[in-house]
């Protein structure tokens, strides 16, 4: 029950927003804020109410829904230590994206409705325990994303929105085939039951193929090189709030999907592909980092750095160790917060200067000290400064993967070194250096909503950096039960 309320709270707020009459359009943002805050409060309550001593899924709901001829599809939600932190991340970033959208003036009701529906669909993905329900939520996310980028975006917004949708649909078509083949073999869509099914020897395709089909769908989302090209386009043309949601939680759906379904359901195949994961992960880290160095557009720079950071996640998943998988999940949380903050800062800057060309910026520290503080903090967090969230995550992954894939870890560490390069170089070119007088009349971060987003995100980055047990206590048991399956 709690989860049903949580998942559909944002959607209910979206309906409310749409029902507002034209003349009270200005109220839309407050309704959206109230709805997303309520969801955040509920998810925080669940986070602390969660029983760490119990195995398996909690707050589960399960109802028969559709009978498609030979088996049942259920409305089945539940959370465990793996999904719960991601749920909180989603509700938190939803509040953040509503707040950074306060400056949006165009068609506000539709805008907030789309943002809230997006939140519902992501929450659904993280809590669904029926594979087809999972897929439905996965697809639902396309509608609001397409509209948000295509209508409220900038630049080649239509092109980017279409590219985003086509990549995702192409990936999810493979995923659907994988899901169906699995379900036809086991006669169930239940993710928990599928996980306990054992080998799928009588399926239409061999397990390795099923695994690949599912993996392609998730890999597009994660994204891995070479399926990543939609990401920089989508990011650079999306409005700030959408970039925050995209980098913050949508990419995590990919990583979560791999751990929750690919690895849990087909541990044997995961073990076979393990070395490929490590190799692709390391390649993504390195390639992403090199490409990032060459970016001239601020948003594309952050976007490509995401490719690099998500490569580390894939490396952690590939090593299939208890620490490496927990680290991978932690990295998803850390990256969600840090990159979210980076996009917020870039967005605030863009709102004032109306350019993201790095070469046109410079010396902004003088004109915008607060924004500069924020972006420097976010940059340091991104390059893995100790005592901040990203550091914990990366160290855990590297330590956890080192034994199995020494070489991949070494390559990835080099990628992290490069990240220090591109972040510091970006900071030097954008906020330091000689003052440009064309930006003299611009004001600094000034509204309460801007302050609260930046402070809130930064506080969480610090909290996760100094008190990782908050998450690990819940996460580790769930990860261990998955790792046990791989071992057996």
């Amino acid at each position, binding site marked *: 029950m709690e989860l049903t309320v949580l998942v559909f709270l944002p959607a209910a707020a979206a309906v409310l927003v749409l029902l507002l009459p034209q003349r009270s359009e200005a109220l839309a943002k407050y309704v959206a804020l109230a709805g997303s805050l309520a969801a955040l409060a509920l998810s925080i309550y669940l986070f602390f109410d969660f029983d760490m001593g119990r195995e398996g899924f909690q707050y589960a709901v399960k109802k028969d829904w559709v009978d*498609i*001829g030979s088996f049942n599809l259920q409305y089945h939600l539940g959370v465990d230590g793996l999904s719960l932190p991601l749920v909180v991340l989603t509700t938190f970033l939803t509040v953040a994206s509503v707040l950074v959208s306060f400056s949006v003036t165009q068609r506000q009701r539709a805008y907030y409705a789309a943002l809230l529906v997006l939140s519902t669909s992501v929450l659904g993905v993280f809590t669904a325990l029926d594979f087809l329900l999972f897929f*439905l939520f996965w697809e*639902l996310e396309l509608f609001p994303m397409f509209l948000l980028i295509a209508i409220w975006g900038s630049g080649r917004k*239509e092109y980017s929105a279409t590219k985003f949708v086509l990549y995702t*649909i192409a990936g999810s078509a493979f995923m659907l*085939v994988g899901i169906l083949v699995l379900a036809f073999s086991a006669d169930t869509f239940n993710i928990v039951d599928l996980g306990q099914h054992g080998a799928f020897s009588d399926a239409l395709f061999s397990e390795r193929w099923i695994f690949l089909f599912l993996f392609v769908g998730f890999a597009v989302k994660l994204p891995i090189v070479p399926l990543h090209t939609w990401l920089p386009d989508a990011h650079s043309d999306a409005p700030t709030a959408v970039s925050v949601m995209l980098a913050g939680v949508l990419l995590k759906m990919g990583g979560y999907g791999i751990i929750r379904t690919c690895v849990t359901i087909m541990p044997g195949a995961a073990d076979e592909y393990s070395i490929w994961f490590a190799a692709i992960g390391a390649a993504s880290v390195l390639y992403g980092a090199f490409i990032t160095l060459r970016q001239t557009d601020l948003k594309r720079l952050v976007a490509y750095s995401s490719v690099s950071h998500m490569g580390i996640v894939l490396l952690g998943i590939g090593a299939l160790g208890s620490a490496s998988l927990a680290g991978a999940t932690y990295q998803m949380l850390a990256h969600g917060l840090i990159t979210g903050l980076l996009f917020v800062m870039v967005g605030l800057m863009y709102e004032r200067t109306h350019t993201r060309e790095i070469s046109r910026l410079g010396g902004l520290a003088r004109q915008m000290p607060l924004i500069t503080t924020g972006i420097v903090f976010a940059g340091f967090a991104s390059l893995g400064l100790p005592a901040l969230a990203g550091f914990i995550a990366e160290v855990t992954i590297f330590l956890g993967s080192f034994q199995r894939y020494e070489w991949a870890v070494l390559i990835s560490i080099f990628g992290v070194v490069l990240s220090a390069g591109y972040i510091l170089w970006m900071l030097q070119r954008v906020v330091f250096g000689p003052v440009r007088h064309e930006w003299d009349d611009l004001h600094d971060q000034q509204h309460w909503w801007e302050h609260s987003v930046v402070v809130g995100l930064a506080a969480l980055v610090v909290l996760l950096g100094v008190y990782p047990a908050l998450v690990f206590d819940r996460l580790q048991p769930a990860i261990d039960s998955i790792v046990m399956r791989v071992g057996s």
Partner: protein
Amino acid sequence: MSSLDIVGPQLAVLVAAGVVILIDALVPQQRRLLPYVALVGLAASAAWTTVWVARDDWQTAFGGTLALDQYSTFFYYLFAGITATVVLASIDWVNREGRGQGEYYALILTSCAGLMFLAAARDLITIFIALELSSIPQYILAGWGKDERSSEAGLKYLLLGAIASALLLYGMALLYGATGTTLLSEIRAAIEAGGEANRSLLVLAATLLIAGFGFKMAVVPFQMWVPDVYQGAPTPVAAYLSVGSKAAAFAVVTRIFFEALGARFLSDDWSNIFAVLAAVSMTLGNVMAIVQTDIKRMLGYSSIAQAGTFMIGLAAISASGHEFTLGASGVLLFLAAYAFTNLGAFVAVIAISQKIGSDQIKDYAGMWRRSPVLTVALSFCLVSLSGIPPTVGFWAKLYVFNAGIRADLAWLVIVGVLNSVISAYYYLGVARQMFVGEPESTEPVRTSPSLGLSLGVATLGVLVFGILPMPLISAAKDAAVIFGQH
């Protein structure tokens, strides 16, 4: 008398057709009532069907040539609903056109009765007569418009339809020759008794049947007429053809093949033919749809591709055991889902083109600012056509794909899934135009109440059954029960 009671649903529609003609001839000043008389007739037909469903007393009439069973009642409801929607969607157009109002509605109703007879027919001759009863009014209606395009459409449809009828008759004659009977149930018995002896004759007969009905189902390679007729015919008529006539053809093909020709040693042959036709139709229809600039032509090609997807259900005839009827129920579910979806799309197109006077997709740009409701409704229908949740089209596709997998047609399902991706490109392309394009004018596009009602019903069906599809699925399953287990 009891035979008449059994064909009551058809009679109600035919009587309404007569009343429409009489009112038109005797009290012409009351012409505006005509569509409502038609709607009352259709409602009466549905009520009569409901009485039979409530009685749960299934029987045959006229010496076993017409059946009143779960299967035919499913289609009675479907055809009454489709025709009612088309009548509602026609009101504006017919009023504007002015002439022959009585004839227009009477022809639609007559054709609807023909469709209902088709769904109930269990005898080759009855099938043929019912097919002509439904087709001849359609030929006239396709040529109803005043422009050259419409005349061309009518003529083309008539000529190709005549060829198809000839092929069909030839196939029926061969089937009769091979089995010595025209009743579907006896044909089955004769085939099973005769064993493999007549195999080649049966295959030839069935191929001709598929060719004849393939024209009405609008599958490749019998699809040439589709884009021209859809584009040229009045849009409400095109909607009727794309949904009603196609559904009836699938209804009768499903019945013939599952009931008469479902014998184990033959079903693999059918399965292969249907599977190939399905794969080719889906692929060709979708690829051709991509390049269309006229939305009615695009919907024409899309309907070819959709027919290919239904056909996966027919190809699943080779499944055995309790999964035998899965393919048939999949076809039924898909037909119902497609009826809601395609009617919704066509009604939206009617409403939009009435205002902007164009069927060009590029003129749909920025429609969101001119009519948000129409845009959202049409978008949901397009999304449903491409089979993306949460719409009824998704469940239909899933169900049919499931049937395909159970019949060991994994390759066909993969072709189907890939085609869904292709189709999403052009369906969503229209949606994209409407949401993000720049409108040429900002004048709002308003809909009349009758169009609004029909669009509302169709879109609501797409969404409600998209979230809670069980009633529709159960209905399709119940209807397919008559094919039993093999």
